[in-house]
């Protein structure tokens, strides 16, 4: 069955894969629609530059389409793409900053940002209050300052909403490691946001 239109959510994974294997161009476009944003997001958060994220985006899809026959259908198609994107971005990051990247190693327990210190209670301030404080750039800055190993787990689990198992598969780590890193990422981000909001908003 040729794909007349590419309907984002409606085409089943199996039908899409069949169409891709037949070389159906609509299916290629559908795959970009389906997985492209997250591919870009992973690359952008790891590399911190739009230009490099665009490179990885292209490399990922080129590589995926070239190696479609290797895809055995055990994971979701998008999961497979995210894994390719992650590995490409990681390779580039290692080239750029060889000294900072120990992404696969266990993280040392010395980061004291995981012991909550900032106890300003901003949880229930109305969103307009928080938005006034240039929320987006604050969020960006905080996530950029996370160690890369925590950053990727957080963005895939909490921002993109992937499951623990999927994230483990993409990063090639255990599900327990995903859970630990997620927890640490959340606490570190909380600490940074709290510090920021307490300076900006406390006592007004």
């Amino acid at each position, binding site marked *: 069955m040729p794909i007349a239109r590419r309907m984002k959510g409606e085409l089943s994974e199996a039908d899409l894969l069949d169409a891709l294997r037949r070389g159906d*161009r609509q299916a290629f*476009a559908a795959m970009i629609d389906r997985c492209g944003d997250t591919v*870009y997001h992973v690359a952008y958060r790891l590399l911190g530059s739009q230009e490099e994220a665009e490179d990885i985006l*292209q490399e990922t899809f080129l590589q995926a389409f070239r190696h479609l026959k290797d895809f055995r259908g055990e994971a979701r198609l998008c999961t497979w793409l995210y894994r390719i994107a992650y590995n490409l971005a990681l390779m580039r990051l290692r080239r750029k900053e060889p000294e900072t990247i120990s992404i696969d190693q266990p993280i040392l327990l010395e980061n004291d940002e995981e012991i909550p210190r900032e106890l300003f209670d901003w949880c229930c301030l109305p969103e307009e209050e*928080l938005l006034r404080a240039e*929320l987006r750039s604050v969020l960006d800055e905080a996530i950029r300052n996370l160690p890369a190993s925590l950053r990727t787990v957080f963005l895939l689990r909490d921002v993109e909403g992937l499951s623990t198992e999927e994230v483990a598969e993409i990063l090639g780590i255990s599900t327990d490691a995903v859970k630990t890193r997620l927890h640490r990422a959340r606490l570190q981000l909380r600490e940074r946001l709290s510090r920021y909001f307490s300076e900006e908003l406390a006592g007004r």
Partner: protein
Amino acid sequence: MPPSKRCEEWLGRISLYLDGELAEHLCQELEQHLKECPDCHVVFNTTRRTIELYRRYGRVSMPEGARESLFRALNLEDLLREEPGSE
């Protein structure tokens, strides 16, 4: 002031709790602790809010220009204008 040792143990479990993965009897104990301990209560609430804010505002999608170059690189530029889900 950093929370006490006991508090640290509870705070170590808030992610599991938020993800619905904490054993039931521990959930109840945690909830009880949050009621009694204002510090942990703040940490819990602000952690939850942190996640919410990122869910809502932390997403990044392909810029239109990046999407166009991608379609072009794959010789799909004729399909560029067909938006997902459109008739």
